[in-house]
């Protein structure tokens, strides 16, 4: 088959699958169900082949059979323990191997926590003592040191009030804590609004990508031979 023909078939398959999935927008139909199941099958097949091509072959099979590291064979009985989940008598063996992964993940948490959160704690704490260098940074339009300090105080207040809102260890009684907590809830709404705005942009971008494929790659380039 010529390369151009392959390219054309790839585009036609792309058009068919795009329109097939979009057909659900009109109503539930068999074409959509067909492409939906096709997608699930292809994605599952891709995961299997990626596991072999990118992990098992280079990191296990090649090491064992080409480089001669025969002890890699012990991975098979270890992996078999996962499948003991289907055995009534020996299902505990699957927990042994799951335990290994739970422990390893837990052990790695110390470093990830330290590297991820310590700089954040430091920034959060230093905001209170007038962290002002951003006055000269791009985007600090006409900010005076006073307004920068005000922004930093606001940052701290929002941080503290949102944390208060999520503090469930004791009952929030009195006047101060419920008020702070309520302010925290309002600022959370601002953040969720921002998140909603960003979500819209993300989804619109992906739709534009598909529309561009249909209009540009298929209609303009393939059908009308425009560039």
């Amino acid at each position, binding site marked *: 088959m010529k390369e151009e023909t392959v390219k054309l078939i790839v585009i036609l398959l792309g058009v068919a699958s795009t329109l097939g999935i979009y057909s659900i927008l009109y109503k539930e139909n068999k074409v959509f169900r067909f492409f939906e199941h096709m997608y699930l099958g292809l994605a599952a097949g891709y995961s299997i082949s990626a596991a072999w091509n990118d992990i098992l072959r280079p990191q296990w099979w090649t090491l064992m059979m080409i480089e001669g590291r025969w002890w890699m064979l012990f991975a098979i009985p270890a992996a078999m323990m996962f499948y003991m989940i289907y055995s009534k008598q020996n299902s505990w063996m699957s927990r042994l191997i799951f335990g290994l992964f739970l422990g390893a993940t837990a052990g790695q948490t110390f470093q990830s926590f330290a590297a991820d959160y310590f700089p*954040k704690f430091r920034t959060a704490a230093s905001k209170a003592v007038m962290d002002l260098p951003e006055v000269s940074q791009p985007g600090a339009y006409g900010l005076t040191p006073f307004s920068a300090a005000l922004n930093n105080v606001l940052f701290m207040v929002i941080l503290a009030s949102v944390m208060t809102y999520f503090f469930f260890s004791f009952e929030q009684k009195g006047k101060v804590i419920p008020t702070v907590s309520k302010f925290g809830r309002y600022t959370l709404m601002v953040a969720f609004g921002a998140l909603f705005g*960003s979500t819209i942009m*993300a989804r619109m971008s*992906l739709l534009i990508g598909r*529309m561009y494929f249909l*209009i540009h790659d298929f209609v303009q380039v393939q059908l009308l031979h425009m560039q």
Partner: protein
Amino acid sequence: MRIPQLDRRVLYMMLAVVVAIPLLVNVPLPPPAITPPTRSFYETIETVSADPKTKDKLVIVSCNFGSGTLAENLSQLEATLNHIVSKKMKFAIFAFNDPQGRDLGGSTAQRIADKAGYKYGEDWVNWGFRPPQGIQSLLKAMVNDLHGALGTDVKGTKLSTIPVMASYKKADDVGLIIEFAAADTVRYWIQFFQRAGTAPIATLFCPTSVMANEAYPMLETGQLQGMLVGLKGANEFETVMKQPGFATRASASLSYSHLLIIFLIVLGNVGMIQDRKRQQGATK
């Protein structure tokens, strides 16, 4: 005037039309404002490429996205790679979240490298894909020994025999990390690599728009030096670079689809207020 109840299919059609028209005909639009995360993204590349301490160091281009978010991540990648090659910086493509990232990143890099006269193995390299399950340990091992930890490139050639990698052996030889992602994968660089050498490595992030909000605190803390927010970030970057691409072409569709959403929210709320007033009138 009473606001009509619109069928969902009418709403879908409105969106399709609003998105499609600017792709079919040229709709005039003012250039986008360049937001601070984009500006600092651009300036970080400029600074790293000009600083004698970092200009000859390696740039890691981490492509952790798949075909699902191609519209956002690919345009960010194209614009950024164009900037990197214009600065004659050496770079390595890498993926650890989705094997598709290796292929999508690799083919884009190949295309841009060919245009810029970059040679594979001498000016750039594709480290390939490594599974996400072991990424923490891999990054830890890469800090002291890039060659040993990664082993081979995407073609199976030992990294120690690839000319471009001869002078890049550990984290201290990396001048910049740029993460293109559909998920929160930049954390791994921050947690296990960025500060593990003798000096922190400048790190830039290109998330999808929906991921960006979670990353803003990292700009505040200095863990990130710049960010391109989704397709609009790519559009801003293309504008700064004066190299219009897909993001610039998509800008009008993005703008008008946002206007449609705001219009529909307002319309829905006006309808609700009308209904409420009518109900109040009926009870009176």
